[in-house]
């Protein structure tokens, strides 16, 4: 029985790693821009597709398959910087001043547009490239074999992202500017901080993280239209449960939801899709600001 427990934990961690990478970008964007980015799911999907295309290209050009790993990161950066940056500069900048509903709908509209862009660019049939997964082989835990990619590389990447993000936000000037603007935009601007630039930087970082999640996920599964849809609502669940803007909280919550799901698969499979949302409802009912969020005082 304790064997099964360990296995459930390991499965949950691999899953949580991916969800975390997407959710942390989402929560960062919300914390700073006060924007719930529905198009985040699109960054995830396009990151995955781009990574697959890049790796296929590498294979066709005959280069070393080990280049697939930097290719994963490269695709994330490309998608985040180009697509994310473009989106923020051209579109989002015009709508910050509008009501929350409208800014959210703008990202929803972008999500819809990008869904079709994916279909037009990459087609509607499944794409499958698992080079990065196969290269690392399997590792054994007890009697069970895991792929080293899922057991070790994915959680390791998530941990690196977490540590890097923490360090960035706390110890670098740019990062501290982000935190300042997140705290109080007007005060930060009054002190001379270029909030526009901070918004752009934050959005690009968030988009890159989502695309990284997608890129890292792509070798494990086949890509078809709609993979962004499931991931975005799951990220919402993590972000809302953790508390909007909470980076470390997102990590903990991702683990919580990941474990919840994998335990459900073992113990009560009908509940596996339900778990994250049930947890979300229960947490939000008792702590609407999320597990780690700070309750906002009502400004009169």
């Amino acid at each position, binding site marked *: 029985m304790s064997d099964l427990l360990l296995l459930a934990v*390991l499965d949950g961690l691999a899953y949580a790693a991916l969800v975390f990478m997407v959710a942390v970008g989402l929560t960062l964007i919300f914390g700073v821009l006060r924007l719930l980015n529905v198009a985040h799911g699109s960054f995830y999907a396009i990151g995955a597709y781009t990574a697959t295309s890049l790796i296929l290209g590498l294979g066709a050009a005959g280069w070393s398959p080990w280049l697939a790993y930097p290719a994963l990161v490269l695709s994330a950066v490309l998608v985040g910087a180009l697509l994310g940056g473009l989106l923020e500069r051209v579109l989002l900048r015009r709508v910050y001043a509008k009501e929350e509903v409208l800014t959210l709908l703008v990202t929803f509209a972008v999500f819809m547009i990008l869904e079709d862009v994916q279909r037009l660019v990459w087609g509607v*049939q*499944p794409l499958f490239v698992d080079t990065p997964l196969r290269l690392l082989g*399997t590792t054994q835990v007890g009697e069970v074999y*895991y792929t080293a990619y899922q057991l070790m590389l994915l959680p390791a990447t998530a941990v690196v992202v977490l540590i890097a993000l923490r360090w960035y936000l706390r110890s670098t000037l740019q990062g501290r500017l982000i935190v300042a603007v997140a705290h109080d935009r007007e005060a930060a601007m009054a002190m001379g901080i270029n909030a526009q630039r901070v918004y752009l930087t934050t959005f690009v970082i968030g988009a890159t993280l989502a695309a990284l999640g997608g890129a890292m996920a792509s070798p494990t599964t*086949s890509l*078809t239209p*709609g993979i962004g849809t499931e991931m975005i609502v799951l990220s919402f669940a993590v972000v809302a449960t953790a508390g909007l803007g909470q980076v470390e909280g997102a990590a903990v919550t991702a683990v919580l939801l990941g474990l919840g799901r994998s335990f459900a698969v*073992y113990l009560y*499979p009908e509940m596996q899709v339900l778990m994250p949302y049930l947890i979300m409802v229960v947490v939000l009912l008792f702590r609407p600001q999320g597990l780690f969020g700070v309750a906002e005082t009502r400004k009169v």
Partner: protein
Amino acid sequence: MRTLLAATAALALVASSALAQTKPKEIVVGITTYLSGPASVFGVPGRDAADLLIEEINAKGGIGGVPVRPIYIDEGAGTENLLSEYRRVSQAENAAFTLAAISSGNCNALVPVAEDLKQPNIMWDCGTQQIFEEKRYRYSFRTQANATPEMVATVLYLLQAKPDFKTIAVVNQDYAWGRDSWNIFSNALKALKPDVRVVAEMFPKFGAPDYSTEITRLSALRPDVILSTSWGGDLDTFVRQAAARGLLKQSTFVLPLAESSLQRLGDTLPEGVIVGARGDHWFLHPAVEDAARHKAFIDKYKAKTGSYPIYPVYHMAQAIAAMQAGFDKAIKAANGAWPTREQLADAMKGLEFRGLTRTVRLREDNQGLEDQLLGTTKRVGEYPFAVLDQMKLYPAELVTTPVGQKSEEWVKTLDKGLPTNAKIQTFSYKQ
């Protein structure tokens, strides 16, 4: 208002049936298939086959001298879209026939609609046996087998191939087909080998991208046999993920629908996997009735798509052959006039036709009788993917539920001597 509506309705009906008596400019066929999403690897070959076959028909002048035009409806676009598109094609485009559907869930939704619309419909691929067992339909026909013969044949093959296995686990897609097929399989197994223990029943969502947790559980449980009636992209993903973690070496996999995945899986599938062809559909089928036609079609299909045909292609061939045969019969019976929808539907009753392999006959409940082929994978030098060896062909009458009975009950009465029945033919792989 009601009388006005009723009068309009009556008028429209009379007008439409009067119109139907004259030869139309074209025969519209509405075909539902998966054109997007994980199942499209399965659905697109169906479409390619339909294009090829309809081209052949039109080259010979069409059906009754009228060219055929297919309209494809994507099952991957969601139920709401499917329902509205189906109705549009049936009514606005005035489809003579519809071929619907691949997914058992979509068949469950569309067959009652077809009956309502008086639309002659052929269930060209879906397998749930419940549709014809629960109700009699006038307008829908199934030109292939269903879950029962397919699962019963699989049980029989498994019992011959691995007579001493003790534990089994199942990983099926969570929808009508996945549930129905397991229901039949487990009941048949219990009847023929009661001492087998089911150690896990897992039903991941249709289209699930990730089976990691299921695979971990299976690795820990180590059943002798793992059954999965998944198909299309889902099966591909499951097998690939399982292979990456060594599960295919630990347990014997039984995959009754895997014939359609053999080429795509290539090297990933090892030897010793029990594979079914959902009927007797296999491009290296050892006992087709018209070998020359079979080979000619395979060459044409390969030239068009680059691959050998898989069972959705064969199912499509059967459906279109049935449609043609039904039309021919109805045109003859209508004595020069063009048949109405009612006449078409009635002509389909008891029809006999042949797709690419062997003759299929429709019973009085509109269910087709189709022989079942299963085999075990083997790697050979001629092909870059696994082929079938140690094949067994199960005659339809042996493994199909008799008319009027419910499959779930019938399989419980299977005879223990069935696996060694003399009517079962055996074949080996031949180059």
